[in-house]
């Protein structure tokens, strides 16, 4: 009996250590963002009003203001930034899915002795700095960059294309940076697939394309969903890619939040931007969490 109690106490301690850490440094900070989003900006350190005010009475009065949220609704810049982030993330995710599926499918079909090396070639860029991989595209895409030099010397175009500082560059950047995140879950799923099912379909007179569409795609749906979430969710709030590759007219909410915080120093508005972004992403994040837990156990 004593032993059992010891084990149970030990169990609580083991759960408690990582739990308290995440509560203090992940969960608690969100409550503070929520709190500050209801404050008003002032010129002081820190630059926002406090929600509770102690006057003469024992109980503090609560001074919550919805100004930051009303401000976001009022200015079409913010709504457009949310919509354009969702659009850019959706299109990039779909492009990454098509490219990633072709690569993951081909790796899964490759001879076993090659698969390890091919997979490592996918993982290597996944571990390489995001910033460096985005930076690498600047030299390629800019007006006097390598892509234009190549196309002009091949005689494909006479005048350099303007790709750098446009939405197109942002699409290229997101697809390139997040492609490994798409390939890895797709491959994990396709690797387990029984390709003899396709032979069975072919034996029964099904054309390869139809077999792919009616057998392979439905079977790999969990991988497709996991890959899409892994690309879509962080891409919506992406900052580095639109900042370095996009132009002034490229609107993305991650960049707006950064500007609001670092340039305008309006902390309540930056907090409100973060809270609404979180509200948009909370459903996909929870769905992703559920599917991942199911996949692991």
């Amino acid at each position, binding site marked *: 009996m004593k032993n059992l109690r010891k084990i149970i106490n030990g169990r609580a301690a083991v759960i408690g250590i990582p739990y308290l850490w995440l509560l203090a440094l992940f969960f608690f900070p969100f409550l503070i963002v929520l709190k500050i989003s209801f404050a008003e900006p002032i010129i002081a350190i820190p630059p926002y009003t406090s929600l509770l005010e102690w006057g003469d009475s024992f109980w503090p009065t609560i001074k919550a203001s919805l100004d930051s949220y009303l401000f976001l609704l009022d200015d079409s810049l913010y709504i457009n930034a949310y919509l354009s982030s969702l659009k850019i993330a959706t299109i990039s995710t779909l492009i990454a899915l098509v490219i990633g599926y072709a690569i993951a499918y081909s790796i899964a079909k490759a001879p076993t002795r090659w698969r390890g090396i091919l997979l490592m070639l996918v993982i290597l860029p996944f571990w390489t700095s995001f*910033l460096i991989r985005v930076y690498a595209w600047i030299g390629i895409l800019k007006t006097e960059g390598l892509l234009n030099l190549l196309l002009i010397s091949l005689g494909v175009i006479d005048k350099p294309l303007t790709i750098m500082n446009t939405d197109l560059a942002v699409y290229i950047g997101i697809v*390139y940076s997040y492609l490994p995140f798409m390939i890895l879950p797709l491959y994990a799923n396709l690797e387990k697939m029984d390709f003899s099912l396709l032979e069975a379909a072919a034996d029964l007179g099904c054309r390869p394309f139809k077999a792919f569409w009616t057998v392979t795609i439905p079977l790999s749906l969990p991988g497709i969903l996991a890959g899409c979430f892994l690309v879509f969710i962080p891409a919506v709030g992406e900052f580095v890619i639109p900042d370095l590759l996009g132009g002034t007219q490229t609107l993305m909410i991650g960049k707006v939040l950064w500007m609001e915080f670092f340039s305008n120093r309006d902390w309540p508005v930056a907090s409100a931007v*973060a809270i609404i972004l979180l509200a948009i992403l909370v459903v996909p994040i929870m769905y992703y*969490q559920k599917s991942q837990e199911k996949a*692991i*156990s």
Partner: protein
Amino acid sequence: MTRLTLFNKTSLILGFAFLYIPIIILIVFSFNESKLVTVWGGFSTKWYGELMSNQGIKDAAWVTLKVAFTSSTIATFLGTIAGLVMAKFGRFRGRTLFSGMIYAPMVMPEVIIGLSLLLMFVALSIDRGVMTVTLAHITFSMCYVAVVVQSRMSSYDDSINEAALDLGCTPFKTFILITLPIIMPAVISGWLLSFTLSLDDLVIASFTSGPGSTTLPMKIYSMVRLGVTPEINAVSTILVGLVALGVVAGSFIGKKQKIN
């Protein structure tokens, strides 16, 4: 065994070309004599020499290494425990919130995580510096370690632990002597993953760092904003080389463990 079709071969070649050509170009132009990144002026290692005399970059690299080493070590400790809890502890009160806090940081936009941590540090009037960046990095890295360890633990045979416990071994000793050596490859790859995540992070470090704690990605970012230079290519090449070495070493450890 199915054979690779023309489509498979084409998509592999084009896919890997897309993934690697930008990195290869970046590396090649770090050895360019000319200051222009797009014009080849002959082979030279002068940009590496220039890098060595750039005190700002050296300071930033030192801060980054310190942060990466400390944060990945603590994150591996916390993440291993969290992975164990996720895989083997079944139901407990607050489990849904716990697994939410493990999975959410991996996909959540970095600007949100960075902003929330910064606002907390300000609200608690904690001075920003190397310490706060380290705390931030531990928090997101431990989630990756937890998932790596969790997926290893879910295929772990509990009967070995039960045998040790039946023979009078304490739970703690069982974990150290039996479980930990078996899941070691997952723990090591978790550490390596945390280390590179910390090495790479720009956004969260920008929010949580203070004066005197500029990390290498922050330094590179401020250089990139001023324009493309071969010096950035040189520092990038070194980072890419280090990561490649780490990944190859990591997979080697994994393979050796599997054979054993």
